[in-house]
């Protein structure tokens, strides 16, 4: 990998699902510190790309590198330990535990859960969890079981769970879907501040073009398994192919 700035690189990745091209010989790099948006119509391969990066989907061809080290098709838990965390389109939480317990478990997972009889609820984990809770503004529900939270807060908790791993690369699958239009920018502002504070590189799949325009440093446009445009939001949104394939369909 020649590019020094590249945190994540994929080379010639190909994935077919029963003849449908989810990734067609894709080669690209994600640079350190960038906040990159992935847009595209439904079924264009956005989530599959995240699934390849996290090891959930094994590509039929090609390779994935994190800082030059190959991580292709490692199990998700190994990739998570190497520093790639993800959030989910449908929040994936430990529903019978509180927000704070969820976060403390994530912190413990980062430090390794095999650590004898020391309780999970210990001062340093609690302090770190509370810091995260304050960072994303979940203070009022810190002791609520995550299974009983409304959708928007579950989404935020889901992202915070990934943040607690202190990842080098954070993959966000539609962080604002299912969130009301009013809350959308609040959540994004909070998230952006948290990411900047922690100098985390992030990649996010998004359907809301206004969110993309406001927050992304770079936009990757997907269409039937290929990246058809790649650049600054304003440049990409002016591209006719993008207008036809993505924006026209919105």
């Amino acid at each position, binding site marked *: 990998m020649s590019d020094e700035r590249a945190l994540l690189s994929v080379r010639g990745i190909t994935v077919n699902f029963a003849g449908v091209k989810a990734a067609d010989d894709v080669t690209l790099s994600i640079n350190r510190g960038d906040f990159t948006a992935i847009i595209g119509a439904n079924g264009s391969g956005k989530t599959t790309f995240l699934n390849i990066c996290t090891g959930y989907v094994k590509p039929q061809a090609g390779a994935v590198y994190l800082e030059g080290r190959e991580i292709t098709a490692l199990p998700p838990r190994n990739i998570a330990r190497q520093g790639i965390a993800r959030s989910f389109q449908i929040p994936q939480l430990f529903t*019978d535990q509180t927000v704070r317990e969820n976060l403390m478990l*994530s912190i413990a997972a980062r430090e390794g859960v095999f650590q004898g009889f*020391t309780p999970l609820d210990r001062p340093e984990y609690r302090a770190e969890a509370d810091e995260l809770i304050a960072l994303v503004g979940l203070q009022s529900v810190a002791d609520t079981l995550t299974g009983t939270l409304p959708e928007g807060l579950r989404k935020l908790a889901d992202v915070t769970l990934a943040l607690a791993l202190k990842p080098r690369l954070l993959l966000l699958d539609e962080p604002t879907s299912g969130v009301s239009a009013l809350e959308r920018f609040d959540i994004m502002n909070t998230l952006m501040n948290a990411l900047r504070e922690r100098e985390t590189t992030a990649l996010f799949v998004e359907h809301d073009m206004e969110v993309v325009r406001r927050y992304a440093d770079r936009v990757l446009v997907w269409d039937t398994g290929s990246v058809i445009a790649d650049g600054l939001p304003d440049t990409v949104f002016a591209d006719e192919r993008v207008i036809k394939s993505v924006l026209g369909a919105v």
Partner: protein
Amino acid sequence: MRPATLYLLLAGGVLAMAALPILLPWKQFVMTVAMAKGFAALGVALLLRAGMISIGHALFLALGAYAAAFMSRGAGITDLGLLILGSVAISTVCGALVGAYMVRYRAIFFAMLNLAVSMVVFSLLAKLYRVTGGTDGMRVPVPTIFGMEYDKSQFDAILYYVALVLIVAVGFLVHRYLKSPLGHALAAVHSNEVRLEYLGVSAWRVLLVAYTVSAALAGLGGVLTAVAVGHVLPEYAYWTESGHLVLTAVLGGIGGVAGPFLGSIFLEFVHSFAVGYADDAWNMINGIALLLVIFFLPQGLYGLIARRRAAKSVMERDEDK
């Protein structure tokens, strides 16, 4: 309920159990066996926390019991402490080996594989007459304690308190395990295994630890049963025994370490009552007791004394509004 009140109640329960041989001496023997089975039920309860039902854990109960029989008959080990340590060690190793394969499976597959393996062992214990004594089983002589020999009734009295002390000591350790990151990860396997893997945690390893611990607990229950009864039988590994352990765990509640012991002791009391008044209907009364608990106490008997977290959190949220 506040933790302090809960601890007071638990301490009261232990004191009541300590006084039982004096107040109800004829109950001492059945209560020793109930406490022994409580350990095995606690093992089953650990796996239930991860949402995994084993209908084969009597296997490890039988392993612990037969290990004690073989050690005292074949190897000439008579000391109670050594018998307990040896039997637990054997069932722990077997648990780790069997578990490495079992915990790759979930739900009905996990339940059925455990059932299958335990029934294979049951058959072996029953068929290998020359080694295991077949369906006659094996006699377990009264163990010595630190080199001292006791007659059966003295030994039984001591064993009762050994079991009680072990409940407190082992219960405390298991409680700490459940509160540790590994214990929380165990519950997380149940609520969201996918997320756990994406946090970088191997569910397989988390479950293997739990399975091994559960086998050790069942083995401890086995050796205590063996020395209390003084005889081991292949039926210890039979599937109804495994089913009984699941029933005990569910009835007692899996929310806390005390639950399975509570369930085991409660069932023993129901049993003696049922036998006294309706000898033939024991299983029916058993079933009705379980139905009542499932309908009215979804968190088991332990749910009666422990705070109900789900209900509480919803109430708190409503207060916030």
